[in-house]
């Protein structure tokens, strides 16, 4: 068995899978437009490869920090930062969708666990929260220069609490 099959997977993976599945339920046409590619990339967009963007929204994510909320070590708390890259109108819709789907505390955690139950990721979520930390306007003080860059970057923090399970 390889190391990757033994250690728990990072929390962002099951969260992104679940998020994308709900978006697919809500708007199947939107997901079809991505030709089977889930537009959530860890860090640099170079990981996106030749994904056919055509101006479509995408999310780049980063494991921002691990918070140790208490000395009870099995309970872990991690914050993932999402940079949503989209046109201004898509930013509003996607930002709202991310919060609508994930910012539901225990209920969202249960849904993420249920959706990924068959994947054996070695993670069990307790709660999920989402909050927006910036839009492009607030982060640079001025609107992005759209003649150079057609996209708008909004940042969200996904705050999750979980514990690890053994991967069988």
């Amino acid at each position, binding site marked *: 068995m390889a190391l990757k099959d033994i250690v728990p997977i990072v929390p962002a993976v099951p969260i992104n899978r679940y998020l994308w599945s709900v978006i697919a339920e809500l708007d199947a046409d939107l997901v079809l437009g991505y030709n089977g590619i889930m537009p959530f990339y860890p860090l640099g967009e170079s990981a996106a490869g030749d994904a056919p963007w055509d101006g479509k929204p995408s999310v780049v994510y980063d494991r921002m920090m691990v918070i140790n*909320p208490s000395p009870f070590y099995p309970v872990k708390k991690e914050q993932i930062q999402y940079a949503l890259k989209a046109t201004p109108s898509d930013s509003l819709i996607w930002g709202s969708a991310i919060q609508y789907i994930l910012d539901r505390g225990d209920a969202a955690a249960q849904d993420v666990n249920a959706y990924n139950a068959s994947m054996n990721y070695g993670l069990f979520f307790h709660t999920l929260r989402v909050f927006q930390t910036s839009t492009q306007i607030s982060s640079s003080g001025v609107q992005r220069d759209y003649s150079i860059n057609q996209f708008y970057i909004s940042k969200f923090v996904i705050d999750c609490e979980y514990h690890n399970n053994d991967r069988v």
Partner: protein
Amino acid sequence: MKYNTIDYDKTMRSALSYSDGFLKGIEQNQTYFNLQLAEIIKQAFYKYVDSVARLDPDSLQHVYEWGQVGIGGGRLFEIEAFTGRQSIRFVTEFQQSTSVSPTSTEPFYDKASVMEAGTMVTISPPAGGVLAFEGADGEMVFSSSDIQIDEPGGPEAKGGFAAVVRDFFYNYLERGLLNQLIKELETPIEFTQGWNKGMTYSTGQRSARRYLTIDGGVG
């Protein structure tokens, strides 16, 4: 039925003394608490800025050494905390760059502060020499006259760090870090843990110290 009022009186005095000690201990340990909190906020600040830099390098590349955007060791900024009993004040400052860009032979020492301010830069060729640099189309450009750069670091570098500092303190800190801590402080279990036969003024003070000790941290 008989009541042992002596024992009752002793227990009540002990409980009052313990409670007094706890309240006094809270007052005495305010600076201790703020010092820990300031350290956690500083660590969270570094993590936050590094993460934003990795996700949106255009706006923060200027506050890191060349080629080290989002890496702790490449930071050109520091945050200092000044802690008192009632307040914590944070001050950020830029440091000089010591690395050399791939297109230069000398460090751009004040790149963080110059690019953050969006200060126009004029580069002059050495006496009797020419400037050589890569143009926008990738071709080498040679010039014997001064070159003026209106927005060093690009348009998104100007004010980029200040904006992230603002986002951290106004949009992130409370929801991302402090709410959890406040929630824990709302339940002073350390006070009830010390509520026993041996309670005194000084055990109350010690319980307060434990109550104000932040167990968690940021990694």
